[in-house]
């Protein structure tokens, strides 16, 4: 009985010890610095459509390296609120290894070297009628979600952060 209790105690201490070791070792932890994002830029425009761009810096602030398996930008523009233009495309890519095809190439971020980078977010608006600049004159605040998937030391997970592009920013770049 005593031997069983002793063995259980040892096992429990071992589990506790391991848990503490892993807590100290930590894991990757990605921080998307949405409050430090760049001002909105008008990247390209024709009469009917426009592409706007912004940059969101991020860092791996964790104690281990981690992989961003996927990052998806999800702007939420309800037609009940704004219907002069449609948000027809939303892409995100890495500044250090930019792509134009909308594919997110999985990227590893060690915590001691390349532990930071910048997301480049592009949103394309297409006027439903007439000129895009006139259509965007009435643009509203646009909530944008960033969903991301991480594979690090432990089980993969997804998480989300978000920010808002204010209507004043749209007015500034569309000259309204």
């Amino acid at each position, binding site marked *: 009985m005593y031997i069983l209790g002793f063995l259980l105690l040892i096992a429990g201490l071992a589990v506790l010890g*391991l848990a503490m*070791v*892993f807590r100290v*070792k930590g894991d990757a932890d990605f921080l998307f610095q949405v409050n430090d994002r760049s001002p909105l830029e008008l990247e390209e425009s024709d009469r009917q459509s426009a592409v706007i761009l912004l940059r969101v810096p991020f860092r791996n602030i964790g104690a*281990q*390296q981690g*992989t961003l*398996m*996927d990052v998806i930008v999800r702007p939420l523009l309800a037609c009940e609120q704004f219907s002069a233009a449609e948000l027809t495309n939303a892409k995100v890519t890495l500044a250090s290894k930019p792509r134009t095809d909308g*594919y997110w*190439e*999985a*990227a*590893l971020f*060690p*915590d001691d070297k390349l532990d930071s980078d910048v997301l480049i977010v592009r949103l394309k608006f297409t006027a439903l009628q007439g000129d895009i600049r006139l259509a965007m004159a009435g643009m509203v605040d646009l909530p944008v979600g960033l969903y991301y998937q991480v*594979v*690090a*030391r*432990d*089980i*993969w997970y997804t998480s989300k952060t978000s920010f808002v592009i204010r209507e004043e920013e749209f007015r500034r770049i569309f000259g309204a």
Partner: protein
Amino acid sequence: MADLRELQLVPVKTRILTQKDDIVDSIDRYARQLVGPDDIVCVAESVVAITQGRFKRPEDMHPGLWARVLCRFLPREASLSSAYGMQAAMDEGGTVRVVLAFIAGAATKLVGKSGVFYTLAGPQASLIDDVTGTMPPFDKVMVYGPKDPDKVAEAIKSRMGCYGAAVADVNDLKRAAVLGTSAGLDPDELCRILIDNPFGNDNQQTPIVIIKNYRAAVRG
């Protein structure tokens, strides 16, 4: 030993090969015109593995407790440092074998001897590529080592009518390993020939390298 000065290394570009491709058919399609009876055809091991369907998404894997614990003790840059890499090694080599290899590796590390874990964990353990280890669209999967690389090499040699064939694992860090060859080839010599990574980086899409004039260089 071959006179390396007589050798010419010819990388061959292909489209992205997938699990729907047969590696021997692909080599025939892309390199038939370039390969002669004196040549050796080398193919990158990760591409062979992909054509064999030997890859898995982390989302389709369920690391057990042993994998989640043991991976923590490997250096962060190791492919088995993630729970998925370690689980992949256990799936291939067996959980008991990998756990025992870990214990032996840890014990021998204490006396300054490294590499024992990979030696004992099974041949696949050192071949597993973690996510980001391969170019898109395989950047999000674990790629295992190829199965039966010697047989693959023999099949390539037979189809192409060349002097020999090899399945190689080479990188830009002056590390080369030959995983399988057709009969009669010296893996160590092939490693020396391939040490400067004529396969190039992933984006170049040149998984096939032809060592031209090998027979003549050996006889020379």
